[in-house]
């Protein structure tokens, strides 16, 4: 079954679908800022810079056949956040959706949390496929009937109607963050979640919007002493008392909420010692962790820094158990990457369903599949040129210097404006969603 392909099978990836406009002139609002499958993989949500959320649904009909092709079609779309201006602080608050996290499904409706820099919202997405008909006082179109014409009483009945998917904001969690929210994470207890900004992490109850608990605060008494910020945070998938947060200095701290109310003191500190001879102006910048994700098993966690992906065993703090180079050829381009700000790009990473393969994005619309057990890696490209139905993706190669072989692309030809920052992997199947600047690509495992 797909997803279990530990390494014995060579998974071949095929183009399945692409969403979004073809034209090169990208409006800022259309820039995709987050991509997330729900827990079953049936729904795929995207957020963009314009504050909009689009949810796609997997076409269920085909699922009766094992390993069949499935399609994702638009299910719902809504404006989650609007631009705001904080007059007191003279601060513009972007409507860009930084993160979306789904809640596990409890009833017929679906719930997700979406957040911009300052405010988190809980959205309920529900289906309506019946409506009451036969009101006494109203016509079917809503106009009120003339009361004098009503002589009999009838009971309205529910009749089927065309499916309507409605999204409504059920909770608004506001005013708890001075700095910019970078992460939200739902706890395995299904009642609480955390939100993290540059300096603080807050714990919320999903039902309570007027208060939250501060559980991490790394703001120094004197801001001149500020040396690191929080870059990402996540709850452990199984242990409701455990969470981790990563920093701009390349460290990850694991905290246990049972230890104390304020978790400023970590339970574990994960840090790989740096070789002092390698220290340079760029060291700290490229060591900044842009994403941290627990494995589904909860035994490992993965971090993404500018040039590499590291897998950590939670039982070992002094170094990662695996390190994968994403685009090592950029090491000799750091000067220009600093000048064009690309060195600050925040790439995300994700695990496949059984934690055997990890994926992360790169430049030139390339993305990397890193197979753990086999120590194999593959570079693929999301492009309109490889977008014929079921077209198998050919592995790509980058030539760092010296002789460029045929089919290789040289580092200097890479387009650094085409970055894949956000990717997501279906929790059970080999279906991946890859976001380029303004397009969403869906790839699937080749099915014979």
């Amino acid at each position, binding site marked *: 079954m797909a997803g279990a392909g530990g390494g014995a099978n060579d998974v071949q990836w095929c183009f399945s679908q692409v969403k979004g406009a073809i034209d090169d002139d990208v409006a800022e609002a259309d820039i995709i800022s987050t991509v997330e499958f729900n827990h079953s993989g049936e729904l795929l949500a995207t957020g963009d810079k314009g504050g909009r959320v689009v949810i796609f649904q997997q076409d269920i009909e085909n699922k009766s056949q094992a390993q069949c092709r499935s399609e994702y079609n638009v299910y719902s779309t809504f404006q989650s956040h609007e631009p705001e201006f904080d007059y007191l602080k003279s601060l513009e608050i972007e409507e860009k959706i930084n993160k979306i996290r789904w809640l596990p499904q409890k009833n017929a409706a679906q719930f997700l949390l979406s957040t911009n820099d300052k405010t988190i919202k809980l959205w309920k997405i529900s289906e309506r496929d019946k409506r009451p008909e036969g009101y006494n006082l109203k016509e079917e179109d809503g106009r009120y009937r003339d009361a004098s014409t009503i002589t009999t009483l009838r009971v309205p009945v529910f009749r089927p109607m065309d499916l309507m998917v409605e999204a409504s904001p059920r909770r608004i969690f506001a005013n708890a963050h001075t700095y910019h929210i970078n992460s939200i994470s739902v706890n395995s207890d299904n009642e609480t979640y955390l939100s993290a900004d540059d300096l603080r992490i807050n714990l919320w109850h999903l039902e309570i919007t007027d208060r939250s608990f501060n559980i991490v605060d790394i703001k120094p008494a004197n801001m001149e002493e500020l040396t690191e910020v929080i870059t990402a945070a996540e709850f452990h998938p199984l242990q409701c008392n455990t969470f981790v947060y990563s920093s701009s200095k390349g460290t990850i701290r694991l905290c246990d909420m049972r230890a104390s109310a304020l978790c400023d003191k970590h339970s574990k500190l994960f840090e790989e010692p740096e070789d002092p001879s390698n220290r340079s102006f760029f060291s700290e910048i490229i060591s900044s962790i842009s994403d941290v994700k627990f494995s589904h098993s909860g035994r490992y966690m993965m971090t993404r820094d500018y040039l590499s992906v590291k897998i950590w065993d939670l039982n070992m703090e002094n170094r990662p158990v695996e390190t*994968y180079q994403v685009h*090592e*050829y950029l090491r000799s381009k750091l000067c220009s990457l600093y000048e064009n700000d690309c060195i600050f790009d925040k790439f995300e990473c994700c695990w496949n369903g059984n934690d055997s393969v990890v994926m992360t994005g790169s430049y030139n619309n390339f993305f990397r599949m*890193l197979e753990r057990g086999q120590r194999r890696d593959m570079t693929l490209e999301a492009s309109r040129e490889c977008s014929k139905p079921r077209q198998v993706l050919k592995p790509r190669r980058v030539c760092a210097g010296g002789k460029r072989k045929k089919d290789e692309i040289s580092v200097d030809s890479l387009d650094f404006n085409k970055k894949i920052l956000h990717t997501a992997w279906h929790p059970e199947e080999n279906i991946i969603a890859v976001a380029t600047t*303004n397009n969403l690509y869906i790839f699937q495992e080749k099915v014979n």
Partner: protein
Amino acid sequence: MSSENQESEAPLEAGEEKQDSQEKDANPVKAEEAKLKAKYPSLGQKPGGSDFLMKRLQKGQKYFDSGDYNMAKAKMKSKQLPVAGPEKGLVTGDHIPTPQDLPQRKSSLVTSKLAG
């Protein structure tokens, strides 16, 4: 994965070549750092330190002084207020921000093209 797989160097033939490329391997970052220092000599006593973080924490800050604005309006009753250049986001120097300069803060009522 963790070693030199992606650095597709041309196949090494002589011992000398190998040594050269090893040196290059060891110091591509140092070479880049030297390039940067040559271009921006005043850059960073604190590499990657507070300056970056401060800039990051202050993202989105706009500055407006109603006193300045009204004074400028009063002084320049007869003259035009200086209009913002093409870079509306940057208000610098003598230019006083005016309501015309503020970017339109309407939310996008257009449906996302992903849903189109």
